[in-house]
């Protein structure tokens, strides 16, 4: 990212319910479990990770989005790999 981009990024209003498209690869924290399935909550949108291994909560993982419903801001993604830890 260029120096100018560093300063100009973020001068906008960001939705609390971000959308994703099928095939998107994103690195996010796994934020909790719902009904035994790991969940990555991004803002107030949620991605379910039905095939992810256990013990990923508060780990930063790379995901590939497999589906996303813009109406209820809920989707599914497959786990690719763990890429980082919590800052705390």
């Amino acid at each position: 990212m260029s120096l100018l981009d560093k300063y100009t990024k973020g001068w906008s209003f960001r939705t609390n319910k971000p959308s994703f498209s099928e095939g998107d690869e994103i690195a996010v924290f796994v934020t909790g479990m719902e009904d035994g399935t790991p969940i990555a909550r991004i803002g107030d949108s949620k991605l379910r990770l039905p095939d992810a291994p256990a013990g990923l909560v508060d780990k930063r993982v790379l995901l590939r989005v497999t589906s996303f419903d813009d109406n209820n801001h809920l989707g599914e993604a497959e786990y690719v790999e763990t890429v980082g830890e919590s800052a705390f």
Partner: protein
Amino acid sequence: MSSEDDSEEFSEELSATGAASSGPPEISFYGGKWMSAFPLAFFVVWAIVQSGVLRIGDTTGLVAGMLIALILGMLFAKGSWKNYANTIFEGMTRRVAATAVVAWLWAGMFAETIQVGGFVDGLVWAADAAGIGASVFPAATFILAALLATGIGTGYGTTVAFTTLFFPAGILIGANPVLLFGAILSGAVFGDNLAPVSDTTIVSAVTQDSDIGGVVASRFKYAVLAAVIAFVGYLVAGASMQGFDVAGQEDLLAAASEPAGLLHLLSMLVVIGTAVAGRHIIEAISWGIIVAFIFNVVFGLASVSDMVVFNAPENLDIAQSLAVLPFVELVDAGSTGVGGSFYSGAQGFFPLIVLVLLIVAGAQIMIRGGGFQAIQDWLLESVATTVRRAEITMVFGTALVNAMITINTAAEIAIGPYIARLGERFNINGYRRANILDANTAALGYIFPWSGGVLVGFAVIQDLPEQYDWFTQAMVVNPADVVLYVFHGWVLVIVFLLAALTGFGLEYTSDRESEEVERL
């Protein structure tokens, strides 16, 4: 060592030290897990009594409070006290503590070196040359104090330098004292918040796993928005609030004016430029120190002995032989010692370094005792239930902790883990988390009447009547009087509250990654 190795080591360290919050409590306390918060709670009460009630801004006094708190806390630990004792060590060796120590030592040396090189005198020259009148003086003071604080990274140092000189000089011109003090504190807030060499900037970045250059660049938008509004505020208030009529007494500004000091704007830009370009903060500040040293010597702004000096006994033969060196001076046998800006710049932070190590130890006891987890669960289940509410919780949580722990860096270290965990549970980007954390910490540390930033300025102002015959007690500004006039601080808090409510500037972890965190 490759950056990959660094990164791996950093991750291992994080998992070894910080991730314990999700495991079972490892220290049990009589009275339950909430008693693990006793050391920090006791310290907060001590800080309120010392700074808030008795108005004593003595950092070593807070160190004594925290030491007593750690001893008393141990009395409530069940079973062997070995675990409790080991947890103190574990906390003190955490990366965030080391980061604050490094930031203070390096930034302290740099700040002192550009100050002995007459940077403040250069700013005084700029104010004097511009021929600024009473009504514009507070607004100009805000800009110049912000410039100094951005260069030296310490708002406390800026407050002391400006209340010593600009404050009485402004009153002589006819500016309103309350507004002037508010403008100085506002400048301190600006620098503490934005400077890459600021301790709060560095701690905010490292606790949120983000690089300093990226953090500074991403918070620029909030800082500039708030500064423009504050600047207009000082212009408007300056035109309507009257000062005292003491004109013609003396011209303090002209006496202390030296344009060459402005050369250190370049020293400042070297640090900011290298930090934002992604260099390690130690490297960035070291470059600034080298450039400042060269400027001081080459342009005669300060001598080598102003920066580093061995004051050796004059009756010692070897000392007499070595006195030809520019960093050896002969003194009475009773006044020997090492001195200079490198020495005093680092030394000035020693009490704060010890205090922060002890506070991190207290925080680690709360983590191992289950208190941290209990508060985190309560916040996530009852308060921070949506991303907007989570961000508002971060703003108010930071404000609350700053109200209680009056040294703003210490407050930031105490609340940092909560901001990290709350934010991560909504995948809020590390830059955004660091910005929320630091803006409120920087702002409120100069607003609350009992905060360290206000008290260091008040201590200087209190002595001015003894220093100047014309300076009356009516011109002394009490900490409570200035609260409303720290415009930049208030606007910054409001900007972040609005940003949390509207999503302005919000970024998620999926939007962009922090660059090479191991560089700090």
